[in-house]
Structures are given as C-alpha cells and as structure tokens.
C-alpha cells in the first residue's frame, strides 16, 4: 500500500527530446510487449465488468435452489454458489463493483495527496504539518485503518473508498513533494527564476510537468494495491455490504467450500490475478520507459 516509484529522470521543460526517445513516453511504454500484455489483461477484465448485463442473464443477487451447482450446469456456465446464485453473474458484477471503487478511490487519494504536496511546497510550516499528517496516516497499517474507518462508518462502499483514498494520500503526496524538491534545485528552475518567472508559474509550467511521470506509474501501482485492499476488506467482512458482490466478497464466501467446490473460488482468484498482473505489467512498462 505504500509502494513508491523511484523518481524519474528529469527533462528540462521546452528542451528537445533525444532522437531515440519517443515523443510520448507513456504511449511508447504501453506499446512494449510488457505494456501490451498488461493492457490486454486489464482490458479483458474491464470489458467483462462493463458488459456484465450483456454477458449474463442472471442478477448477481438472484437466488435459487441450485446450491453449489458445478460449472457447465445449463444456464450457469461457472456454476452457482451456496445460495444458488449464478457465479458468472456475481463475478462480472463483482468486477464492476471493484472497478467502481478503485476508479473513485485511487484518483481521489492521488488528487488529495497532490494537493497536500503542493500546499507543502508553498510554505515550510505547511510542509511540516503535511509531513506529520502523512506520518500519522502511514502509522496505521492498512487493515487497521480499514477496521477503524468501518467501526466509525459501518460497512459499505463509501468506507472502502475512503480507506483506499486515505492510504494513497501520503503515497502520492510524498512522491510529488520529493519530485518538487528535486526539480527546484535544477538549473532550469534557477534560470527561470533569474529570468523573472513567478513562483506559481515555475511550479505549474516547469516543475510539475517534470514530476508527473512517476505519478502516472504510481497510479497503476495504486490501482493494484486498491484491488488488494478491497479484497481484503470484503474478505474480512468489513467491505461492501452483502449481498452485493465484489471480488473479495465472492472469494470470502467461497472459502468454506474450497474442498468440495473449488470452482467457487476459481473465478475471483483468476480475475484478481489477471487484474493485478495486468496493472503491474503496465506499471512496470511505464516505469521502465520513464527511467530510460
């Protein structure tokens, strides 16, 4: 949850790009085999989630008398769970729920972290306050934070989003602050300052563009972490309220049946693996390209 990406090498704003380097580093990164594989895995999972209503004729909470039906049962290609719910529907709608949560939580955490980092860059006193705030958040292990937030707000979608966002704030905040501090010492910033450019303009026009690359990589990494956090919270019973499916919740429900119905756990396990692997490959590809 606190994975940091090493800061990227900098390039002075406005300087010419080296000939061997593509103009859009991110696009180049995703064009690599690693990047493509990652994108393909993530794309398949995302598409499956988005097209859930078209891919299954069952509702994710519709129950039936078919308890733990095997894969291949007519009408239930992945079988059913203990309460007779279609596993394909629960898996696909679970992906939807997960994607909704991480798509809201990670950008929220990133935005708040970046805003706090900018505030920290503005004044030394604010810097101290923000850093100690980050220390405070980081002092809580992720799951303890999750349990604490859930104890206050009760289980549900909002607490999961808040926990993920809270956990990501210091990650993005520290990353951006480090980038700003590094860039501030560069000659091109000094030159801009000598040239009479205002502090605000230096920050937005010169410094921020050079600190953005690690943040892009960090977003990919944080999406991976968010999948884990959601899964862990649902697994512990403090995630999204039942009977709404999430990948973690379906996995948790399958645990008592690992011996008798392993297919119950297979769907969410494979999906989480594909999603995390895809995001990790994409993050790695971005990171490698940016560091070149």
């Amino acid at each position, binding site marked *: 949850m606190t994975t940091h990406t090493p800061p990227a090498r900098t390039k002075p704003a406005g300087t010419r790009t080296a000939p061997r380097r593509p103009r859009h580093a991110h696009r180049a990164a995703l064009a690599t085999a690693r990047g493509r594989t990652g994108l393909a895995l993530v794309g398949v999972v995302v598409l499956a989630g988005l097209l859930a209503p078209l891919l299954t004729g069952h509702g994710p*909470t*519709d*129950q039936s*008398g078919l*308890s733990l039906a095997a894969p291949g049962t007519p009408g239930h290609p992945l079988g059913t769970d*203990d*309460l*007779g719910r279609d596993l394909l529907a629960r898996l696909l709608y679970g992906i939807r729920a997960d994607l909704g949560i991480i798509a809201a939580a990670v950008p929220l955490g990133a935005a708040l972290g970046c805003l706090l980092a900018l505030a920290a860059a503005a004044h030394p006193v604010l810097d101290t306050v923000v850093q100690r705030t980050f220390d405070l958040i980081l002092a809580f292990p992720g799951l303890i934070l999750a349990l604490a937030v859930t104890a206050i707000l*009760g*289980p549900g979608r909002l607490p999961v989003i808040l926990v993920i966002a809270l956990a990501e704030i210091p990650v993005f905040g520290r990353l951006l602050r480090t980038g700003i501090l590094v860039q501030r010492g560069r000659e091109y910033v000094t030159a801009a300052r000598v040239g009479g450019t205002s502090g605000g303009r230096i920050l937005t026009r010169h410094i921020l563009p050079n600190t953005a690359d690690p943040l892009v990589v960090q977003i990919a990494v944080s999406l991976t972490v968010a999948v884990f956090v959601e899964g862990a919270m649902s697994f512990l*019973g*403090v995630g999204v*309220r*039942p*009977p709404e499916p999430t990948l973690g919740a379906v996995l*948790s*429900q399958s*645990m*008592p*049946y*690992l*011996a*008798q119905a392993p297919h119950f756990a297979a769907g969410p396990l494979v999906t989480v693996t594909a999603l995390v692997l895809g995001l990790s490959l994409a993050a790695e590809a971005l990171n490698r390209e940016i560091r070149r």
Partner: protein
Amino acid sequence: MTELYSSTPTALSRRTTLRAAGGGTLLLGLGLAGCRSAVSEAEAPAGKAAAEPRRGGTLTVAVNSDFTPSLLFAQSGQSLQHRLIYNTLTRYDDGLKPQPELATSWEYAEDGRSITLKLRTGVTYHDGRPFTADDVIFAVKNLQNPLRAAQLRATAAAVTGFEKRGDHELVLKLAHPVNNLFDLFEFMILTDRNSVEDAVTGKKLIGTGPFALTRWSPGAGLSFTRNEKYWQPDRPYLDAVEFRVVPQADALLSSLRTGQSQLSFGVPGKNLAVVAATPELAISEYTTGGGAYYLGVNTTVAPLDDKTVRQALARAVDRERILKQVLGGYGLASATPWPKSSPAFTEAGRTHYTYDPGKARELLKSAGHTRLDLPLLHINLPGDTAVAEAIQYDLKQIGVHVTLQPTDPATAQKNLISQKMPGLWTMSHGFAQVQPSTLAVSAYPFNEAKNTSRFRSAAYTKVVREAWTTPETGARANALRQQITDTLLDEAFIIDLVIRGSVQVSAKKLHGVTLNKFAYLNLDDAYLAG
C-alpha cells in the same frame, strides 16, 4: 440423564456396547443410566466397536471462541468446559427426566413450594475441600446475583429459603411453585464458594468435575488434567483434555482433518459435507435442540407493529432452503422454537408457517403495504451472513426490501440485551430445549417481562407466568404450553426458522462423548480407542 443425545441411529448400539464392555460397571450407582455417546459406533473403524474403553491419552478439542470467565454463570457461546471442571445437581435424560448427579435424590413438597435434596457424599473439590449443602446454597444465591447475568436468575430468585439438614441434605423453599427447577439444576454449576471471584476473572476455577483446569491461555486455549479424586470410580478415562481456540472455520476444519484435534462442535454447516467425506471423522447431531435461528421483529417500529405484517414475513421465508443451503441439512425447519424432544413440540406448530410468498403478499397487501424498506441486523460471520442473505432475498420477493447491517457478535449481543435492535434482526436463541416455561421467562428474545422485540401483552405475561408455576405434567400444563405456542405464532414477534442442536464432529477413535442440555461437555466416559 444427560443430554443432548445424538440422533445417530447407532447411538443405542453404542450404549449397548459400552454396557456390555463395561460389565455394567460403567453405570453402576453413578446416575449414568441413560447416558449415551453422541458418536456413532457404526461409523467407528471395524473391530473397534467392541473395544474395551482405554484409559489414558489426551483429547484435543477445537473451539471457535475462547472461554469468557465473566460469563461463567450465564449461558454463553462457549460453555463446553463447564461440565469438565464442575458438576451440576442433576442431569436430564432424553425425556427431560432429571437424573442424579451431585443430588442423589429429591422430593417435592405436595404444595410445590419446597424441595428436599439429598446430596452425594464423598465428593471433594479439586483443592480437597468436601462438597456440602453450603455449596448448593451458595450456588443458588450466586445465580440470584444480577452481576452474574444468569439467564435462569428468575428461577434462582424463586428460591427464597434454605434449610440445612446436616451437610448432605437441604430443603429449598420457593416463593411460588415453578416447573423449571430442574432446568436450574442442570444449568447451575457448583463452584467452590471460596474462590468464586477468582473464577469470574479466570484466575482460579475449582470444581468437583472430572478434570481440573491447569492453565488458561487467553485467546489460545485451556488445559485440563484428570481429577484423580473424582467421585465416579475409575473415571475419567482420559489423562488430559486440551481446548484449542481456532476462530477461523477453515483452520478449525483442517485441524480436525489432520488429526491435530479430535473433537469440535464449531464446524459450520457449510463445512459438514467435507467432514462427511473424510473417513476418519464422524458427524453426530444432537436433535434435542439447543439453538434456533430466528428472524426477530421490533414491534415498536412501524409498520412492524402490525401483526399482519409480521405474519406476512413469517410466511415469506423459505425455511427448508436455509436449512439445506446454509446449515448443510442439519436441523429442523420450524415455525416454533421447540425441538422435537420438547413437551411443547407439535407438528402442527412446526408447520404453521410454511413458505408461501403468494399468501405473504396478500397479507402484506391487506395490511396496506405493497413495498417496505427495512433494515436487518445480522452477525458478520459467514454462516449468519448467509442466513441474512437468504432472508433478504425471500423478503424481496414479497416487496420487502431489506438493507443488511453486518454487526460484530459483541455489539449484536449488547443490542439484543438492551432492546436496541432495528426493525429486523436475525440471530439464534437457546432455552427451548428444556422446560418450555424457561424460554419465556429466561431467554432475552422471548422474556415476557422484557424482550428484545419490545412486545408486551398482558395475555402473554399471564399465560407464561401460569405455565411457569403449574406442574409440568398434566392437561393444564399441556394447554398452557399450547397457549404460549399459539401466542408466539400469532404475534410473530420472534419468527423461528430452523432449530439446530449441536453438531458434533469427532475422530472415529473417540467414544463416549455427551453434552448436557446447555451444551456442557461431558467426558466422564470418553476414551480414545487405538
């Protein structure tokens, strides 16, 4: 004398075998006639059925929650150790007939206002102190103390006087006749009166039972060793017993399958199919009940204050599906709280509310509702969540949209006791396995004076009070029980779903295990064969 007997058909052959093997000495003069193992002998390995009980060995019991010393005198989720450390005055047999334990005989006064107990002689506590009538007096007074939070406090409080006739004869004088005094005797553990305050903090637990507690490691387990001076000669067989706390259901199952533990009553219904497929393990169900899943209704929350709405809910839930899908088929779908062994059980009552969503919708419509939105609190453990999800789905079919409120067990229990439940909740209750009057004067959901549903009715109070003070046999007693059942069904403030006794999972080499009505584990005759 005991117990929640196993329904396994071969339990009788187990008894027969034990009796034959022991030459009758197993039961001689010890008040054990009628004790039966919950473990199916037919499921034991070939050739072991006729084996002599073997002395020695350590039995490891996997429990899913730790012992809570502060609840030593209240029925809590984990009472297995009670009958290992302590004894009770009497024990029930299959037909709720009391059998001797530390009380060897008793005689009621004709007016039902006193009972004379003759107590067993030669019984000593683990510290060597002899057991006397003063210990019984202390035990009754102890349960009268509100701090002990004993569910049977009302019955203990009915004892208003004591007359000692020597060290081993005692007369209990009652304020009014009660018909559940032997429930109290089954429930009340006879602790050492000199160390009771240490007992409720878990520092020192001294009893007269077959095993002495040697160590309690909070969160990890309990260790017991054989009481060499136990009042039953040559008992117990086992050298030692270990309780190992394994909160996670899968880990608990693994500990049984790998032989790390040999006995558990905490395997969820969902896991029982795996146990059934494991050759080394046997499943036995105690059909005398002990617990029941129910849907509770807060009668002060509109529109649940209308009994027609509550009756609609009672018809909307598919009890058989819950039994099959969530509880692994172990239990009895029932609209009333009574297990089959209860004198209040009737088949008509059990099937009073069958799954009928059409009728439920009609009832709801007749009450002026086509759609309702209600909260439902449930314990956030997997089994309880599955029950809640099944209820939620069934109620949705009649237009009642339920929002689940997953809650930790401690908070749920607190809400239950303090009457702070939302419109609906689902949990499980006990106390229907003994005298029916006990349920209505002792169990929080049913208590006529103060129940979680906040249901009050002069008629309910009257019939419960009368049922409590009327002798337990006879036409009048039957009529009163029926009236209680009718009130529960008609008012539907507690909607019973599935009655479930303890389900025992044990290694097939383990024999002679029993439970009493309050799920106290009795290992007097238990042994590990082979």
